[in-house]
C-alpha cells in the first residue's frame, strides 16, 4: 500500500481517499502541518488557516462516505493570491487590497471543489502578477528551496515553491507572459499554460486579460492532466472560454513515434550554456522516443517581448482602473474630493505596478496609440501567423523556458528592462494564445549549488493533448523526474 508522504501524487491521494484508506482530513493535516513548518523559511503561502482547511476536508470525507467517487478526492491545492477563493483573503500581493475577502469562488476553484479538492491556502505572487521573480510582493519575496538566495521565478513563485517543496501535490498559478512556466523552470516542476480560453478566467483578478490564463503546477504529467481535465472547458461567466475537443484521457496512450519537433533556432542565441546543454539533452531524449527533431524558425520571435509588454501594460492600465478603494480593499477617507481621495488610495500600489499603469496610459493615449499599442497588436498577428506556419510542419516546438538559471535576489530589481528580459522565451506563446508546458528536464551546477533547468514545449492552438502525449512518453522513458526538494537543495525522492 502507498503511504502518504510529501511526494505522494494527486492521483494517488484521490485513490487513497476514495478507497477510504486515508481520510481527507488526515491528508489535509499532513500537508497543512508540512506547510506550516516550512513556510517560515520559504514564504510560499501568504494565507493558511487550519479551520477552513479542516472544514473542507470533513465535507469531502462526508461525500466519499456517501459513495461519491471524486477525481480529486482530498487533494490539497495551493491557489495563487490573484484567484478568488470564497472566504479566503485575496490581496494580489498588494497593499491596496488589504482586507478584501471575495464573496464568490473563481470558476476554476468552484470546479476544484466539485472534484473533491481542498484549498490549502493562498500563495505569494509579484504584486498583481507583475514580475518575474516573486520579489515584488507586499509580503516579501518567496525563497527557492533549491538554493538560499536564489529567486523562485515569478510571478507565481509561491505556487511553484509550494509544489516543489511538497507542501501540496498541485497548485494553480496564472501565466500572462510566463508566470507559470518560468517559476516551474526555476523550481524543477511541471508548469502548464493552456490555450487561451481553455480555463475560465472568471474570478481571476484581471491584469492583462487578452494574454493571461490559469496554469497548473505538478510533479508529474498525470497530475497536470488530472487537474486540467477537472477545471477546463466552457464557462458561461467567461465569454472567451471554449471546449477545444482534444482528448486528454487518451493523450497518454497515443504513439508519438514519427512526430516532428521543431527547435526554435532564434531562441538558442544568448542562452546560458546550462540551458543550451539541457536543450540538446531534450533532443536526445526525443530521439529515444522516436520523435524527429529539426530546426524551426519563428523569424520575428525576438520582437515579441516589446509587443508583449506594450499590450500587457496597456491592458493593465485599463484593468487596474477599478481599484479605487470604494468597493473593496484599502478605503478612501471622506475629507477631500473624489479625485484626491482616489489618487491617495492608488498611491498604495507598489512601484512596478505604478510604472506599468503609467506606461500603459501613455501607450494608449492620443497621438501615441497608433505607434505603440496598435503596433503591438499588429505584431501579434504577425507572430501568430509565423507560429501557424511552423505548426503546418511540426507537431510541437521546443525552446528554453528561461535564458538563464535562477538568478539571485536583487540582481534584476533595479533595472526593470533586465527583469523583463527574463520572459523573452515565454511571452511568444501568450501573444499567440498557444498552450505551452515547462518540462523539469535537468539540473546544473553553478557556484557549488545544484539548480533546476526547464525547457518548454509549445503546441498549436487548442492542441494541449500533444504536449501531454510527448511529456508522458518522456516521463515513462525516464527522461524527466521531478522530485520534492527541501531547503536548501535536499532532494526527497517522489514515489
Amino acid at each position, binding site marked *: 500500500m502507498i503511504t502518504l508522504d510529501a511526494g505522494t501524487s494527486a492521483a494517488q491521494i484521490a485513490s487513497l481517499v476514495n478507497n477510504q484508506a486515508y481520510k481527507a482530513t488526515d491528508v489535509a493535516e499532513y500537508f497543512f502541518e508540512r506547510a506550516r513548518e516550512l513556510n517560515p523559511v520559504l514564504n510560499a503561502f501568504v494565507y493558511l488557516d487550519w479551520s477552513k482547511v479542516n472544514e473542507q476536508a470533513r465535507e469531502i470525507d462526508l461525500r466519499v462516505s456517501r459513495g461519491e467517487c471524486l477525481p480529486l478526492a482530498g487533494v490539497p491545492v495551493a491557489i495563487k493570491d490573484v484567484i478568488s477563493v470564497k472566504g479566503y483573503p485575496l490581496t494580489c500581493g498588494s497593499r491596496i487590497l488589504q*482586507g*478584501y*475577502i471575495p*464573496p464568490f469562488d473563481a470558476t476554476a476553484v468552484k470546479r476544484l471543489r466539485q472534484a473533491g479538492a481542498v484549498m490549502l491556502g493562498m500563495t505569494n505572487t509579484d504584486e498583481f502578477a507583475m514580475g518575474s521573480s516573486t520579489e515584488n510582493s507586499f509580503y516579501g519575496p518567496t525563497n527557492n528551496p533549491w538554493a538560499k538566495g536564489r529567486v523562485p521565478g515569478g510571478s507565481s513563485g509561491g505556487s511553484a515553491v509550494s509544489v516543489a517543496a511538497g507542501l501540496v501535490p498541485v497548485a494553480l498559478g496564472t501565466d500572462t507572459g510566463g508566470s507559470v512556466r518560468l517559476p516551474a523552470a526555476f523550481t524543477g516542476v511541471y508548469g502548464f499554460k493552456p490555450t*487561451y*480560453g481553455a480555463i475560465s478566467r472568471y474570478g481571476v483578478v484581471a491584469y492583462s486579460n*487578452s494574454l493571461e490564463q490559469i496554469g497548473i503546477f505538478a510533479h508529474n504529467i498525470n497530475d497536470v492532466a488530472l487537474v486540467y481535465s477537472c477545471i477546463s472547458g466552457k464557462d*458561461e461567466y467567461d*465569454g*472567451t472560454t*471554449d471546449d477545444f475537443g482534444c482528448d486528454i484521457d487518451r493523450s497518454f496512450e497515443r504513439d508519438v513515434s514519427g512526430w516532428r519537433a521543431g527547435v526554435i533556432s532564434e531562441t538558442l542565441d544568448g542562452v546560458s550554456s546550462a540551458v543550451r546543454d539541457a536543450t540538446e539533452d531534450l533532443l536526445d531524449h526525443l530521439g529515444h522516443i522516436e520523435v524527429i527533431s529539426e530546426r524551426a524558425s519563428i523569424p*520575428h520571435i*525576438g*520582437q515579441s517581448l*516589446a509587443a508583449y509588454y*506594450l499590450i500587457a501594460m496597456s491592458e493593465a*492600465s485599463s484593468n487596474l*482602473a477599478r481599484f*479605487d478603494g*470604494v*468597493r*473593496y*480593499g484599502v478605503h*478612501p477617507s*471622506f475629507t477631500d*474630493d*473624489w479625485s484626491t*481621495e*482616489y*489618487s491617495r488610495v*492608488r*498611491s498604495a*500600489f507598489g*512601484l512596478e505596478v*505604478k*510604472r506599468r*499603469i*503609467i*506606461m500603459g*496610459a*501613455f501607450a494608449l*493615449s492620443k497621438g501615441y496609440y497608433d*505607434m*505603440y499599442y*496598435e*503596433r*503591438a*497588436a*499588429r*505584431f*501579434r*498577428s*504577425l507572430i501568430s501567423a509565423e507560429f501557424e506556419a511552423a505548426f503546418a510542419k511540426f507537431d510541437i516546438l521546443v525552446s528554453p523556458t528561461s535564458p538563464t538559471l535562477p538568478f539571485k535576489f536583487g540582481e534584476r530589481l533595479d*533595472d*526593470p*528592462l533586465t527583469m*523583463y528580459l527574463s520572459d523573452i522565451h515565454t511571452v511568444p506563446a501568450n501573444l*499567440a*494564445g498557444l498552450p505551452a508546458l515547462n518540462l523539469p528536464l535537468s539540473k546544473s551546477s553553478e557556484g557549488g549549488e545544484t539548480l533546476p533547468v526547464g525547457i518548454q514545449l509549445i503546441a498549436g*492552438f487548442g492542441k494541449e493533448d500533444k504536449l501531454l502525449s510527448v511529456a508522458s512518453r518522456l516521463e515513462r522513458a525516464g527522461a524527466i523526474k521531478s522530485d520534492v526538494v527541501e531547503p536548501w537543495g535536499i532532494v526527497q525522492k517522489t514515489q
Partner: protein
Amino acid sequence: MSVGDSYDFTPATVRRLASMVRISLTEEETIKISRDLSKVVEYFGELSKLDLDRTEPTYTVTRRKNASREDRGRTGLDQATAVQNAISQDGFIKAPRV
C-alpha cells in the same frame, strides 16, 4: 514622430500621466519612473524596424464571436454580500464626493 525616435520620458510626462490615472507619486518615484520608462520606451522601438502597416491588428486570440446567453434574469449575490467589502450605509456603497 514614429516609433524608435527617442521619446524623452521626462518627469513632467510622468506627472501628467500619473494625474490622468489618479495615482499620487512622490518626487523620488516620479524621477525613478521617468528614468526607467525612458529606457523601456527606447526598447519598444524594436517594433519600428518592422513593416506592419498592412498587417491587421489582433486584440484577442479567441476564435469565438459574440458569446451570448439566453436573456433571462437570475439570482446573483444578495445585496448584503455584494456590499460586504465596501463602506456601506443602508445597503448603499459610500464614496467620496465628486
